[in-house]
C-alpha cells in the first residue's frame, strides 16, 4: 500500500534510547504530524525515513519498497523523498531557481526550468527566481525550500519543524499556504513539530511521541485533545488544573464537582486533570464552589482568569485554578462567583500501579454490541 510504513523501529545514540519500537503507517495523500517534546526522537525518525541515519532496528518501507532494515540501507538519493530542513538548508551559492532545479537533473534543462518555475509559481516566488537565498526573508526562504522539496515529485515529503524559524505573525499565513500546496500535491507528508497548536492546525492525524521514544497516542486532533489516553498527552496542550481524588460509586469528587470514572474500581486513587476551559464560572450561582477572582488576563478572544477557591475543606495545592473563558465574560466582583467542572474537559488517570484505562476488557467481558 502506498505511503510510508515504519515497523518496530528502535534507535539509540550511545546509551540513550531515542526511539522505542515505533510503528506507523502513513497512507499516500495524508499529512501526519509527529508531535513531541525536544529530544523525543521525532527528528531521528525523520532522518531514518530519509536515509540520513542508518537504521539500527526495525524496517522502513516507502510505497511497498523496503528502504531500510537490519541488513540493507538505500542511500537518501535513492529513496525519492523530499525533506525540508528546519533551517531550510538552501544552497547559498545557487540562485533560487538553481536551488529548485537542483533535484531535477537528468531531464532537459529547459524542461527542468519550466517545472521549477511552476513550483515557484505555486508558492508565489517566481519574482525571486534569479535572487540568491541570502536576499530573501525567512518566510520566502521557507517557500523556496518547500518548492525545492516538492519539485522532484517525491513519494514522501518530510518536514522538520517547518515553521519554527518564522515570526509568529507570519506563521499563520505561511502555515495556511503550505497546507494548501501540500493538499494540491497529494504527497504523503510527515511533519515533525513540538508545537501542539501547529500540529492541530496542520495535521489530519497526529502522533504523539513521548519522552521514552515510543508513540503514546495517535488520532485526529479532536481526539487527542478531548480523549487523551495518557497524562503526558493531556498536559501537552498547556496548563492543567490538577486534583487528586478517590473513585467512589463510579465517580470522583473534586472541589469543583463530580467527574465520572467509568470502569474504574472503587477506592482507587486517581488524579483528575481539568483543562482551563473545563472550569465553568457562574455569577450568583446556587451550586458550585465559591471562589475569589485573583486576576484576569485578556488574551484577545479568550480571557484567562486566576481564581482561588474559598471553601475551607479544599487542599491548599488545589485552591488556585486557571480558568479560560470567553472574552465577553467579565467577572462581576460584587457578586458571588462559583466554579463548576465541565466533564468533557476533565481527564482521569490512575495514580498508582500500571494504569488501567477506565474501560472494560474485551477478553474478559463480552461487549453488548458483540453479543447482539
Amino acid at each position, binding site marked *: 500500500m502506498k505511503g510510508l510504513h515504519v515497523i518496530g523501529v528502535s534507535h539509540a545514540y550511545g546509551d540513550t534510547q531515542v526511539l522505542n519500537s515505533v510503528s506507523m503507517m502513513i497512507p499516500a495523500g495524508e499529512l501526519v504530524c509527529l508531535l513531541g517534546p525536544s529530544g523525543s526522537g521525532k527528528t531521528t525518525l525523520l532522518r531514518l525515513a530519509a536515509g540520513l541515519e542508518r537504521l539500527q532496528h526495525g524496517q522502513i518501507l516507502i510505497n511497498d519498497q523496503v528502504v531500510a532494515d537490519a541488513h540493507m540501507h538505500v*542511500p537518501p538519493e535513492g529513496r525519492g*523523498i523530499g525533506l525540508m*530542513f528546519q533551517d531550510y538548508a538552501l*544552497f547559498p551559492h545557487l540562485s533560487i531557481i538553481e536551488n529548485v532545479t537542483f533535484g531535477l537533473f537528468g531531464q532537459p534543462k529547459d524542461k527542468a526550468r519550466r517545472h521549477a518555475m511552476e513550483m515557484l509559481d505555486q508558492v508565489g516566488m517566481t519574482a525571486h527566481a534569479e535572487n540568491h537565498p541570502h536576499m530573501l526573508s525567512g518566510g520566502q526562504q521557507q517557500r523556496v525550500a518547500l518548492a525545492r522539496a516538492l519539485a522532484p515529485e517525491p513519494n514522501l515529503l518530510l518536514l522538520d519543524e517547518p515553521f519554527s524559524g518564522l515570526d509568529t505573525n507570519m506563521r499563520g499565513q505561511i502555515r495556511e499556504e503550505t497546507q494548501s500546496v501540500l493538499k494540491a500535491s497529494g504527497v504523503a507528508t510527515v511533519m515533525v513539530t513540538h508545537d501542539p497548536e501547529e500540529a492541530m492546525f496542520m495535521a489530519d492525524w497526529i502522533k504523539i511521541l513521548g519522552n521514552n521514544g515510543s508513540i503514546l497516542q495517535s488520532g485526529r486532533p479532536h481526539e487527542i485533545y478531548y480523549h487523551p489516553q495518557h497524562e503526558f498527552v493531556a498536559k501537552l496542550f498547556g496548563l492543567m488544573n490538577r486534583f487528586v481524588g478517590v473513585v467512589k460509586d463510579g465517580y470522583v469528587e473534586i472541589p469543583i464537582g463530580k467527574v465520572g470514572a467509568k470502569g474504574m474500581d472503587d477506592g482507587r486513587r486517581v488524579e483528575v486533570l481539568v483543562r482551563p476551559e473545563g472550569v465553568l464560572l457562574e455569577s450568583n450561582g446556587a451550586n458550585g464552589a465559591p471562589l475569589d477572582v485573583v486576576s484576569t488576563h485578556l488574551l484577545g478572544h479568550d480571557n484567562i482568569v486566576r481564581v482561588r477557591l474559598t471553601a475551607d475543606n479544599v487542599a491548599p495545592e488545589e485552591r488556585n485554578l486557571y480558568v479560560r473563558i470567553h472574552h465577553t465574560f467579565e467577572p462581576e466582583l460584587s457578586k458571588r462567583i462559583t466554579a463548576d467542572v465541565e466533564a468533557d474537559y476533565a481527564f482521569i488517570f490512575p495514580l498508582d500501579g500500571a494504569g488501567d484505562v477506565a474501560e472494560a476488557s474485551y477478553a474478559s467481558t463480552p461487549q453488548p454490541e458483540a453479543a447482539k
Partner: protein
Amino acid sequence: MMSEATTVGMAPGRAAGAKSERWAWFNVWSVGTVVIAAMMTVPILTVLYIGLTPGDEIWSHLVSTVLPGYITTTLLLMIGVGTGTFIIGVGTAWLVSTCRFPGKRMFEWALLLPMAMPAYVIAYVYTDILEYAGPVQVLLREIFGWTLKRQYWFPEIRSLGGAASMMTLVLYPYVYLLSRAAFMEQSVCMLEASRVLGRGPWRSFFTVALPLARPAIVIGVSLVLMETLNDFGTVDFFAVGTFTLGIYDVWLNMNNVTGAAQLASMLLFFVVFLVLAERFGRRNQRFHHTTSKYKALPGYELKGWARRGAIIGCALPVVFGFLLPAMVLAGYAVIHFKEAANTDVLGYAGNSVMLSALAAALALAIGIFMAYAVRLRKERIVTFMARFASLGYAVPGSVLAVGVLVSLGAMDNGIDGFMRRNFSLSTGLLFSGTIAAVTFGYLVRFLALSFGSVEASLGKVTPSMDGAAASLGHTPFSTLRRIHIPLIRGSALTAAMMVFVDCMKELPMTVILRPFNFHTLATYVHQYASDEQLGAASLAALGIVGFGILPVIVLSFAITKSRPGHSKPNPAPGQTNKDQTS
C-alpha cells in the same frame, strides 16, 4: 594615555555633547589610531613614492634584462605552490572532516605540524638529503651500480620545482585549516539536502561542498601566495629568481635603492591582487551561512583501498612536511652537537627571543588600542586607518624592509641635518641599522595579526557591557582595563604568541634591517645552511621549529574543542555566541 582624573565623575554622554560636532572625533583614541596607522603605512608609501617617481635609467634597464624573468618565475612559483597547497589542503581537509578511517582524529591536528617549519629550513634539509652527495642518491647508486651522474635522472632539488615543493609542503596547512573549517561549518544539512534531492556523495561534494567552501579556499590560497611572495630563504638558497630575490639582489649587490623600490612597487601589484581576492573571499563567506544548525558530520566509513588511500594521503604531507625534516635535524643536532651548541647560538637565541618578545608586546598593545578605538569611535576615518595600517601582513618582508630602510634613512638624515644646522651636532644614523628598525619592520608586518584577533574577540563582547560600565561611572579607559581586557585575555595572549613566533621565523626583513654583525636564530641558520653547514645550524633550526610548534598546539586545541555540533564550548560570560543567536 588619557588621564583618568579629568573625566572620572563626569556624567556619561556629557563629554560628547560638550564638544562641537566638528571636533567630535578629536580625542586620544581617534588621534592615536590615526597617528599610529599613519606610521605603519610610511614604509609602504615610501616604496610606492620612490618606485613610481620617474627619473632613473635603472627601470628601463631592469625591464630589458631581469624583469621578464622575475615575473615569469614568480608567476610559475605562485601557480605551483597554489595548485599544490590547494590539492593537499582541500583533499586532506575533506578526508578528515567527512570520512572515517583509522587515525583520522590524529591527522586532524597532525596535518598542522608542517606550519612549524619555515620553508627555508626544510629547503636546507631536503637539499642535504637529495643532492648528488646526499644519502638518497648515494643509496640509489649503490643499489643500481651507477657511478656517474649522467647515468641516471634525478630531480634537481635546487630548482623552481624544488622551491615550489618546499613551500607547498609547509604552506598547505593554511588551506587545510580554512577549508576544513568551511567543510565543518557548512553543516551536514547542505550535504544532506543534496543527497535527499537525489545526488550521490561524490556529486554532492563537487556541486555543493566544494562551491560552498570556495570563499574559504580562496582566502587560504591567497594567504599561501602572500607567504610565497614573502619567501626569501628558499629562493635565495635555490637561486630561483623571483621578485623577492630580485629586490634583495638589486638592493644589496647592485646597491641601487631606486631599482629595488621600483621592483618592490611592481611586486605590490601582485599583493593588491591577492588582498582583493582574499577580501572577496571574506565578503562572500558572509552570505554562505544560511544554516545555523550544526550536526555531527556523518563520516563515510572508508573501506579497503579507499581507507588505505586516505591514510597514506594524510600521512605523506605530515611525514614530508614535518616528521622527516625534524628527524634529520635532530639527527644532525646529535651528531654535530659540539659544533652546533656553541655559546654564540645561545646568544642568537637570546636576540631572537628579545626582539620577538618586544615586537609581540608592542603589537599587542597597539592592536588593543586600535581595536578598542574602532569599537569606541565609529568614525569612518578611524576604521579606515586601522584597516589600512594592518595591510602590512600582505606585503612581502623584502618590500617592507626597503621601505623601512629608506624612510628611516631619510628621517635620520633630516634629524642629523637639523641638529648640525642648529646645534652643530652630528647625530649620524639614529635609527637605521638598529634593533628599533627591525622591531618597527616586524610591527608593520605583524600588527594585523594582533589587531585582527583582538578586534574579533572584542566583537564578541556585547555592547551592553560598555553601556553598563559607563552607567556605573567608568571612563572608556577604565572600562577597557577592567572589563574588556580581562574578557579577551585568552585570545589576546594567543595573538601575541602568534606574533612572537612569526617574528622568530622571520628572515628577509631581519637580514636587511639588522644591525651589523647582529644575528638571530633565523639569520644564523640562513647563513650557515647556505654555506652547506647544516650540521652547525641544526640546533638553531630546531629551536625555530620548536617555537613554531607553539601556535600549532593552540590551533590543535581550538580544532578539537570547537567542533561545530559536537561539544560546543560555552561562550564566556559577556560574550554572545553568534551561532546561537543568529
